[in-house]
């Protein structure tokens, strides 16, 4: 994983609550055996009209949302399936951070493992961010705060290990493999108990 220390961007807003993984990437696209190239399918059934042209009603199709790397989404973003295709698609689409008052567990886990910042903010801050699309934000992973244009700061918490991995580009599988002895020890104990 590439290190992620700071993200600077305007925000785009998808205010709907409970945006599920089928809306992020519909199941019929899960026949892929690759990780790459899913950005064009991100939000597919919401983003395009039946003739394949852009749906003007989809907020991220608005000119002011183009190029935004920070997505402010309604409560309980990413609920539903465990498909990692959801963060892969978002990242490939250009989203680097999702801000929300509550994020579904498996999605958040998957996102952080891929360097997509999934950040939970308080209800009041969430409300404000939803009401102010296009705000220029700077997310500091080290300091765990979001800097607002007026100098204000929104603090947030990341699970310490996830933060450490983001900042240092740590490969979690590599970390686990280092614990081979402990795992072997556990397995031995299992066999004895059986």
């Amino acid at each position, binding site marked *: 994983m590439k290190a992620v220390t700071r993200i600077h961007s305007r925000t785009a807003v998808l205010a709907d609550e*409970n945006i*599920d993984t089928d809306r992020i990437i519909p199941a019929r696209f899960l026949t892929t055996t690759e990780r790459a190239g899913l950005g064009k399918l991100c939000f597919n059934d919401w983003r395009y009209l039946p003739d394949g042209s852009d749906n003007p009603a989809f907020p991220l199709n608005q000119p002011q949302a183009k190029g935004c790397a920070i997505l402010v989404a309604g409560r309980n973003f990413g609920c539903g399936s465990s498909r990692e295709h959801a963060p892969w698609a978002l990242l490939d689409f250009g989203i680097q951070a999702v801000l929300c008052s509550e994020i579904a567990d498996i999605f958040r886990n998957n996102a952080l493992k891929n360097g997509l910042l999934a950040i939970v903010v308080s209800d009041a801050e969430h409300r404000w961010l939803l009401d102010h699309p296009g705000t220029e934000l700077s997310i500091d992973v080290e300091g765990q705060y979001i800097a607002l244009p007026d100098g204000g700061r929104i603090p947030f918490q990341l699970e310490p290990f996830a933060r450490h991995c983001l900042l240092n580009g740590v490969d979690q599988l590599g970390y686990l493999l280092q*614990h081979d002895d402990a795992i072997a020890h556990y397995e031995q104990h299992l066999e004895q108990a059986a």
Partner: protein
Amino acid sequence: MSARTLFEKLWDAHVVAPETADTPAILYIDLHLVHEVTSPQAFSELRERGLKLRRPDRALATLDHSTPTLPANDKGERPYANEEAKAQVAQLEANCREFGVELHGWDSSERGIVHVIGPELGATQPGMTIVCGDSHTSTHGAFGALAFGIGTTEVGHVMATQCLLQRKPKTLAIHVDGQLPKGIGAKDLILHIIGEIGVDGGTGHVIEYRGEAIEALSMDERMTVCNMSIEAGARAGLIAPDDTTFAWLKGRPRVPQGAAWDAAVAKWRALRTDAGASYDREVRIDASKVKPTVTYGTHPGMAIAMDAPVPAARSAQETRALDYMRAQPGKPMQGTPVDVVFIGSCTNSRLSDLREAAAILRGRRIAEGVRMLVVPGSEAVRRDAEREGLHQVFTAAGAEWRVPGCSMCIAMNGDLAQPGQLVVSTSNRNFEGRQGKGARTVLASPATAAASALAGSIADPREYVNEAAAA
């Protein structure tokens, strides 16, 4: 040791390295279930790094999501939805050969939906940790196993190390007091529970279902309840194993036999929450209040009794959901015209589910213009159902009887509904487009699905049962 919950006992028994302020726990995984959709990128990662599976003996693979449910033609060709689906299946076959993973593929008489075959084979056992790249892994919690869904990166972690990095989740006890009324089943109960606690009511938690009504459930019903834990946002659902569990598992291919079985049962009996142990949260549900329950919106938390008026939208999202469903506030869902009925999925595709539907369909015809698909959860379920003649009940009623698979639960194998069609479905997700672009899903029990197929509109199954009994 102080009093512990069932969850804590399962967790403690699998800690390879405890969590600290800076690092999550390393948790050992006893059983890794694998299917074609969420595994290819993990196998590729292993190959790129030159890694092997640490414990191929603890992995079990099957084909279910992308597989057609119509049989092969005379030349043995299967009607895949597209070339990608076919390639995905071929890739799992090749990966399992290369990495030495046991695959229940096309030639296996045990193939089926991953969460149906794990228990059937007795691979799922009390006290285990079980994971799969699939959120409905929560199903296996019905056996008192800690079972949860993981992403593809974590699938790779388990393959290479048999471990996961995990923070300890919180616990939520759902006490279901009293007894379910006659004619009301596990699906009604779990839809009712999610309707009460909300689609995010379990986020960050492992749910333990307990109480009189839960103890009275069969294993199939317990699986239906635990299956949908994820629809309340919970990582896992748990039910303490008891005599019902042991009787169900006894003699299955992978459980211990003879004296080893008795020893295992003795150990499993300790898998209960101790008196005095505390949960982070507790909720009480009155089972006697549960009615035939259906969803009216576009997530499983939008669930109500079918005869209750659809509530008015309280937000822009709910307005959008009601518009999508063409549901009318103030009017009940009962009586809404139905286009398609789907009986299947890891929630409700076991033998008892098929029996429940067949009891209502027997000797009757489904309504003109309704399409009905019945898809057994596994080859074993299919065999058992055919032995009882259930397939004939379905086909005589006008339904299609298919080969096992996920089918219209996720609609990625070509089984799907058309835009605007209303599907009464025994599956677990009613998200927009889940069963085909623009398709409208109403989640329901097998009995409700069958009754709705007969009526051509959402119908109360109790009316049909009584009629059958009277006739």
